[in-house]
């Protein structure tokens, strides 16, 4: 689980929109950290109480498309449920991903959301192991 959602997740610049990036010792950890970065696009993750849990399941073998689907599933859940998430658990196995996202309903006064994420794009979409052994997962999101 991502215990400090902002620590290993980061944002990177893009001309029109914004990039999200996560790093971790495993692909799953990188996916969790990137999910934290997704929240950072909208608000400070530390403001989001991990009260409720949403289960997410996506299938696929290609790590990049799995990441794309993971981020898009989070975007869809935030949109449909009017929620923000601050903690994540990801397990990648058997041709798919099982994830849990912990968060709460949007409170505009407390969360002061800056912008809505429309979806993950395939721009800068990468899942790879870096020379130091750390896994990286990233993409640009459309806002």
């Amino acid at each position: 689980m991502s215990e400090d959602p902002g620590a290993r997740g980061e944002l990177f610049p893009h001309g029109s929109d914004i990039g999200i990036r996560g790093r971790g010792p495993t692909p799953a950890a990188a996916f969790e950290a990137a999910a934290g970065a997704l929240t950072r696009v909208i608000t400070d993750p530390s403001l989001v109480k991990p009260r409720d849990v949403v289960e997410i399941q996506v299938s696929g073998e290609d790590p990049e498309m799995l990441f794309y689907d993971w981020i898009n599933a989070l975007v869809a859940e935030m949109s449909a449920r009017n929620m923000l998430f601050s903690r994540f658990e990801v397990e990648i196995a058997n041709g798919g991903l099982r994830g849990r996202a912990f968060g709460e309903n949007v409170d505009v006064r407390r969360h002061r959301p800056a912008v809505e994420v429309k979806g993950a794009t395939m721009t800068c979409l990468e899942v790879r192991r870096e020379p130091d052994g750390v896994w990286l997962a990233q993409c640009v999101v459309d806002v």
Partner: protein
Amino acid sequence: MERSGWERRAEAVWEHPATGRMRVPAVIFASEELLDAMDDKVAEQACNVATLPGIVKASFVMPDGHWGYGFPIGGVAAFDPAEGGVVSAGGVGFDISCGVRMLLTGLDVEAVESVLEDLADVLQAGVPAGVGSQGAIVVKGRELDELLREGARWAVARGYGVERDLERIEEGGRVPGARPECVSDKAKERQRRQVGTLGSGNHYLEVQAVVEIHDEKLARAFGLRLGEVVVSIHCGSRGLGHQIGTDYLKEMVTAARGFGIEVPDRELACAPLTSELGRRYLGAMRAGANCALANRQVITHLVREGFRRVLPEASLDLLYDVSHNTCKEEVHLVDGSERRLFVHRKGATRAFPPGHPELPEDLRAAGQPVIVGGTMGTSSFVLAGRSESPAFASACHGAGRSMSRHKATKTWHGGKIVAELRQRGILIRSPSLRGVAEEAPGAYKDVEAVAEASERAGLARRVARVRPLLCVKG
């Protein structure tokens, strides 16, 4: 932008000949200054689009062009189904039929400025905007399918607006050929509480004053008067449109190899127009477009209600509603012959010329109004479509970003921007100061230069310039 390979063909027209896998040339409409300021990705993406099967004439980029997803934002490309032409989800974008409409109030600036704070309060309270906002209407099941088929007509039939509004919307407020059954349950679920909501980012509701008339005759035809107050609403298809884009982009990426289509960028993923996937996407995209038209129609109703409370004498007649991210089936003259083409406009606006039969009778002689949004601190423009347009009756859509959101938040503080704009007589209402910084006027191109280049390139004529008085953002 690196200009190697690009040659000036005319004033504000630059061309890259068809080389390598390009089937047609790429053409950028821009002044020299705008061209130099464009990132290299614009050129790369314009040339990539030119490789797609069935593309006709050229891959075009409008003066506000910038780096997009597969297609450049500001990209225009037409495809012929009879020549294996394709439809691309990336060529339409996530925010299907994002667009802008302008309402004429009939009021003078002085009358509105005297109650601007009250008007700001009422509009901010009355029009749901931003993350966490929800519409007052819950639409689901058969009712949602009806909305997706009928667009703005759905809204007017339920009391959100008047019949006359429909005449002033592209396709009469209803894009034909929508197939709600091709829209996923996830997309429909996202839309349930979002009908009549503004969204966030570069979406806005803006009260503006007409400060300059460029063409008196066209301004009269459009009902625009110097010193009059107008209202612009910029938003799109919200969660439903976004999910359609997500769903079909992935499906097209997966299916591309099966169609034998090799694309230089996977975000150019596409399907032949005559394929089952292509037809399904068109059906879903048209449903998304109707969702955007319905959304802007409901917001118009909310704006009218707000004005009634503060300025009951306002008329709020719809001048026109244009959409930006679309693929429309149109007939165009190409080398002397009429051809049925599917025209993608990604961050570009349709600009029908004078005399076009799809224009309402009272606008037909003037040409189609084209509303070009600036920033919260600068001008916006009204243009008019013109005859012999070089790019399938298309024009620019806005200022276009010139700086990343990341850099904008490092450069400006939202609170200072709000204060500075207030000193200039512009009220900003937004739930997020970081959001304001991301949308800072300095993060966008010079919209006046974009409008001027559009005119010099023969895309559209300038009619009037408006400046903001009040901007409500999500």
